[in-house]
């Protein structure tokens, strides 16, 4: 299991770095290696147990391989929905955060309502609302004709809207905290140099907030990758939908779900990797690679 191995490796890397920071004494190093060995044993144990289950329940690996390409064809739609969703969520979260921090009642009121309402209702309900309920509004006698082209949405568009709007509300709070984490001295320094409020927000505050916000936003993206499976419930031909339909039809549900789970796991591992690289990139100016010399 390739994915499992990389995952384990990554976890160990963090542990080891943590230990090394406390001081690289030789006995600590060997202690770390011993711990690494123990962890590998645990992973091996888990893999063996899973393998045993495979054999015991006579899982049809040939079936899994046969249907893997079909399931993989759902991945592009899953990714499309997620990239679209996270892009929309980022825009909404930025506006929402600026709104919540605004001293003007109108943007603040709208942002407060948005966060409260969206966080207070289930994602599945929101998805159903956008995909099933909105179109009905277009056909009310009082509705003007052009509403049909707005409210009757393609499933992909509805999915992106639902995920984007939903995650945007959660991310508003992340962005708000990120902006607030930048010290007041930074705004003062910007103002003292003659910057306007919008200049200091754009040039000084937001670029610094990005560093704070990237790690949790990456987590949100990974969560969204999995929540996108809800789109299968309304009939989107994404990964999970394909797993469910083929599995049900052929009485091999466990196999197809296992494959789908593996694919989700693989995707999140890949994105975790890129997330880490992005984090390192935006952390520049905050990591002291070497101590200063007078």
């Amino acid at each position, binding site marked *: 299991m390739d994915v499992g191995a990389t995952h384990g490796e990554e976890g160990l890397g963090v542990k080891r770095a943590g230990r090394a920071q406390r001081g690289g004494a030789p006995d600590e190093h060997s202690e770390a290696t011993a711990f690494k060995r123990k962890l590998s044993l645990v992973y091996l144990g888990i893999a063996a147990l899973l393998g045993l289950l495979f054999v015991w329940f006579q899982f049809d690996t040939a079936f899994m391989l046969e249907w893997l390409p079909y399931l993989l064809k759902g991945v592009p739609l899953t990714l499309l929905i997620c990239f679209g969703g996270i892009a929309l969520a980022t825009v909404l979260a930025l506006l929402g955060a600026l709104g919540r921090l605004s001293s003007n009642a109108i943007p603040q009121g709208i942002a407060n309502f948005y966060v409260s309402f969206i966080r207070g209702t289930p994602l599945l309900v929101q998805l159903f609302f956008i995909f099933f309920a909105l179109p009905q509004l277009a056909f009310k006698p009082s509705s003007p004709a052009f509403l049909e082209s707005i409210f009757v949405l393609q499933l992909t568009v509805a999915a992106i809207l639902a995920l984007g709007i939903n995650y945007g509300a959660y991310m508003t709070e992340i962005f708000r905290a990120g902006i607030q984490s930048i*010290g007041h*001295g*930074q705004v*003062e*320094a*910007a*103002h*003292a*140099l*003659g*910057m*306007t409020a919008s*200049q200091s927000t754009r*040039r*000084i505050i937001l*670029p*610094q907030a990005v*560093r704070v916000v990237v790690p949790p936003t990456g987590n949100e993206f990974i969560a969204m990758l999995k929540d996108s499976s809800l789109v299968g419930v309304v009939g989107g031909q994404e990964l999970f939908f394909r797993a469910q339909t083929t599995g049900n039809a052929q009485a091999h549900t466990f196999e197809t779900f296992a494959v789908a789970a593996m694919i989700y796991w693989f995707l999140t591992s890949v994105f975790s990797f890129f997330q880490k690289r992005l984090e390192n990139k935006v952390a*520049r*100016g*905050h*990591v*002291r*690679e*070497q101590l*200063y010399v*007078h």
Partner: protein
Amino acid sequence: MPAVTCESSYMSTDVIRVENLEKHFGHLEVLKGITLNVPTGEVVVIFGRSGSGKSTMLRCINFLEEPTGGCIEVDGTRMEVGVNTRARKETIRQIRMKAGMVFQDFNLFPHLTVMENVIEAPVTVKGESKADAKKVCAELLEKVGLSDKADEYPIRLSGGQKQRAAIARALAMRPKIMLFDEPTSALDPELIGEVLEVMRDLAKEGMTMLVVSHEMGFAREVANRMCFFHEGKIIEEGPPSQMIKGARDERTRRFLEAVL
């Protein structure tokens, strides 16, 4: 808000005029009517106990604190207490562009290199070209002795280097006056000298400077005038020789004994 009318100043030589400045936070009166005029090229050192209003006055001059009474004038741009209209904000911005500010905690922008810190305001605020701003930046960094640090991020600088970079950043806007808010208080003792050195050079070039500091050596050598703040008022001022050796007021003497 008490309506304090300021006498109109007619072509004064004073580049900083502070008239009847008042500031209270709720019921706490921090400034109780400060009047201070500074002619071009003068260096004024402001000292006094913490909480006496020194920093607040400095921060009122460029409106980082909004005064609750009185009047500020910097290089002919005059601002009274009032409601923040668009026009008023613009005037405040004009004042800020004329008044360079150096903070106790440096407040460098950590996501920008030293050079980017210095050219940020000239490019963003004044619309200078990057090439021009970089040229000026190189000169300024040489002046503060940081030519070799242009591409470093602030986190890799020592406290003294950070403060010198912050001075360069303020100077890049070609201010008419410089406000120093306890510029060496956050520094290790061995790093204070290099910052005072830069400030000394600046004073020699004729920069008008308002310095909140307890560095009496610097004051004696560089200041034209010293002001002693006590409970929101200037209770004594004069040339350093007179202030340090023979302060008239008992409270000034007691404070000086404590810091000298």
